[in-house]
């Protein structure tokens, strides 16, 4: 499809404000002005509407397709939460208003929404308090590690290393490195963190361990109590990466079992939309001992029930966002939590785990499942055996697209060869899961009989396989002015 720039017609007007009698040149010295207006598209409103309506149809989304992308929790995003976030008094409110003297009362609804969201998340996870500032999961990780660093600094601990298991998301080591730590990788044993391997690298220089639980293989870290005990010995803290928290609601409160800091991906567990890659939100919860270091300002509720902002936080790490985080994302999550209630949330986790195990059971014996035992909300399979026919995980992914399913996460986690990571979420019906399994089993059958057809997939989408090497080499990253 032509880009919006290629459709531009010089002189055509779209949605334009009225013309002013004075131009920029009448108001500012010429030397400060640009020489020509930016070469943005010149189109009518209908041109633009039609272009982006057409573009949207080239996408798979949860609204149109089953999207079992492992570790991404592509659950249904309830429509009413969009209406809640769009309420004028929320959407039109300026973030600096409560920071003016007397301004808090004018933002009382916003402050209440922040306070309530923080408190609900704290109860759901068992943490002492939350900050909603982190604007994505990865920023939550960075915030968490900065909190760990602040804790050690305050105690006079000399720490230089963070431990990440080899099953961790790539953001974990990247966040730890950005917070100034050396990253120590430990190998999993039988799909789980191995306390013996941990003990081997554990010394006084270790600031903490980042754990995803259930881990990216979909397995619950059964050695957790032992890990907590080992870490406490050297005053190392335990970080909970909430990427997979959709398996846990009502079944595990991380604060109850020894985690010191946690981030929750609201765009996963709390059903806010992924938006084609963002915006998300990665609120961070802490245990009592990290409380003084949380980013500020903090929302507090006074004795009279009035909400205000507290800036008097001498040990705070400062700000990780300009304001209070992705507020409109938090509103959607709040609406979702209130709608579900405690029982609805725990049921969400129960059925997410049921759905994953159902797919696993249906694929049992048909596809290699390296850890073929009860899983949590997701599990991994391997396309390795299909290598015999020259078929890879990528080919299976593309063939699934042809059948109208988004592909699972592929080639991750790195510790499983030819990995396919499947996370169905609780919002999918048995019929959808069956249709997906049927399609996948047909593809596996085809791998033996007609492997070339899988290597040719997809054939029914707007484009066939794209040349990524060419993209990286030619680096066409913008439309040329032509």
């Amino acid at each position, binding site marked *: 499809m032509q*880009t919006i720039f290629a459709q531009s017609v010089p002189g055509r007007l779209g949605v334009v404000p009225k013309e002013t009698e004075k131009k920029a040149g009448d108001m500012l010295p010429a030397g400060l002005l640009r020489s020509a207006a930016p070469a943005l598209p010149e189109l009518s409103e209908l041109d633009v509407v039609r272009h982006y309506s057409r573009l949207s149809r080239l996408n798979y989304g949860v609204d149109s397709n089953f999207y079992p992308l492992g570790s991404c929790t592509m659950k249904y995003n309830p429509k009413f939460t969009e209406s809640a976030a769009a309420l004028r008094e929320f959407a039109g409110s300026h973030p600096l208003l409560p920071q003016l003297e007397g301004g808090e009362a004018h933002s009382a609804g916003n402050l209440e929404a922040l306070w309530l969201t923080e408190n609900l998340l704290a109860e759901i996870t068992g943490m002492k308090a939350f900050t909603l500032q982190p604007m994505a999961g990865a920023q939550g990780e960075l915030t968490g590690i900065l909190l760990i660093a602040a804790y050690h600094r305050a105690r006079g601990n000399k720490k230089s290393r963070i431990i990440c298991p080899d099953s961790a998301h790539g953001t974990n080591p990247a966040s730890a490195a950005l917070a100034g730590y050396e990253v120590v990788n430990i190998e999993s044993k039988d799909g789980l963190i191995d306390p013996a391997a941990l003990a081997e690298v554990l010394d006084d220089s270790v600031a903490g361990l980042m754990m995803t639980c259930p881990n990216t293989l979909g397995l619950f870290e059964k050695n957790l109590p032992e890990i907590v005990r080992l870490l406490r010995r050297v005053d190392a803290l335990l970080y909970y990466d909430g990427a997979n928290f959709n398996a846990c609601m009502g079944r595990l409160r991380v604060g109850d079992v020894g985690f010191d800091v946690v981030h929750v991906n609201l765009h996963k567990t709390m059903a806010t939309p992924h938006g084609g890659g963002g915006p998300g939100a990665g609120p961070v919860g802490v245990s009592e001992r990290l409380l003084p270091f949380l980013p500020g300002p903090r929302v507090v509720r006074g004795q009279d029930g009035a909400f205000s902002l507290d800036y008097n936080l001498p040990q705070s790490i400062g700000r990780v966002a300009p304001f209070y985080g992705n507020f409109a994302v938090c509103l959607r999550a709040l609406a979702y939590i209130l709608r579900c209630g405690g029982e609805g949330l725990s049921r969400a986790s129960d059925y997410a785990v049921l759905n994953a195990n159902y797919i696993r059971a249906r694929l049992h014996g048909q596809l290699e499942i390296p850890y073929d035992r009860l899983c949590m909300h997701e599990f991994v399979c391997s396309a390795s055996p299909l290598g015999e026919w020259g078929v890879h995980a990528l080919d299976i992914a593309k063939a699934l697209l042809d059948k109208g399913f988004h592909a699972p996460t592929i080639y991750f986690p790195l510790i499983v060869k030819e990995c396919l990571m499947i996370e169905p979420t609780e919002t999918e019906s048995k019929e959808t899961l069956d249709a997906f399994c049927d399609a996948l089993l047909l593809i596996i059958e085809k791998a033996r009989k007609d492997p070339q057809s899988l290597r040719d997939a997809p054939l029914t989408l707007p484009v066939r396989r794209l040349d990524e090497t060419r993209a990286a080499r030619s680096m066409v990253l913008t439309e040329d002015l032509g």
Partner: protein
Amino acid sequence: MPYIPHTREDTRAMLERIGVQSLDDLFSDIPAAMRPQSFALPAGLSEYETMRRMEEMAGRNSSGLISFLGGGVYDHVVPAAVDALSSRGEFYTAYTPYQPEASQGTLQAVFEYQTAVCRLLDMEVANASVYDGGSALFEAAMMCARATRAGRVIVDECVNPLYRAMLATLSANVDVEIVTVAHLDGQSDLKALKAALDDKSAAVLVQNPGFFGAIHDFSELFAAAHARKAKGVLLVNPVMQSVLKTPGVMRADVAVAEGQSLGMYLSFGGPYLGMMACSKDMVRQMPGRIVGRTEDLDGKTGYVLTLQAREQHIRRSKATSNICSNQALCALRCVMHLALLGPAGLTRAAELSMLRAREAATALTAIKGVELFCSAPYGYEFALRLPKDAGLVAQKLLEKKIVAGLPVGRWHKDLDKVLLLACTEKTRSEDIKTLALALSEVLA
């Protein structure tokens, strides 16, 4: 339960297939001792009841305020078509385009966004966006530190104080030293900034218009930085960029902006849009997603995520950044907004806002004792020096439901009489009259 489609019969059949008796059995890996000690959450509500609850909360915010509050985020008009288009489920319920064949809509839109950003800023390369203007500025500083292998970052005090606070937090544990150069009566002290540059400098970070509204040409400063093998980073207001000299022409190496003004609502602070663009020689230092154009097996044009060797899922602890996502939906809103307005519309939005700001400045400086704080040219945000404490004056005006602007004393103790005001194309002449009247009463 909401959003769970299973009938009792489905659940039974599925449990049977798995080979367990109950849902509880699925969680047998979690030791009994680790079960929640509490889960005291409210009972669920119907959709209608939840909306009522949300509406009641929203209703506890004041409405009908007259506002001149800016400070980096602005209340511009958003065309209705932006809401209608970006709320298509095909866009907003998709994820990062890992499967490009099934994500050409998002990918092409991001490619168009990158193009629009480059054209607006006159830069060569843009990424698919980061969280907000502040994180864009931090990432820009880190890019320069990597590119120059130097650790000193010179920051103009005319850079938004909220972003400077973020820089301090985010760089606390890395080998980057932040050197702040004081402003000169609300303007960038170009001489002092130049003098601060040395061989250890990675970059100089400046903002246009500055926090107090002053507009500058930083060409010479960036040339001086380049002479020291340091980089120039420019944070801009993207609406004003329709008329102002561009970062590209000033030879900035990295240009960043808070893109909220291009199609995002104020929404009490987010989600917003961190726009980032750089010169081609720095593209491998760029954080986050980048979309590139390529061809499929049949030679048909298509789009993919590219240059991924920079990113965390490949490089892990050696990545350029820990950023995994982008603000795709906000970037989408931004490019829709720009396409709907076009060059004429964006320019008029800036001019109309500037005109209102001049109207306001004229009306307010007519009040005894009130004067412009800065003598430099300004866009649609400007600073006033009042004869009284600006925080107290703003508080009095707020009692009259007027948000007069931002008292800057919170960040600049010596400027407790300075008030920062912004107008946009939404500002009405009668609002300005109301403010002028009320201000003269408060100061009387």
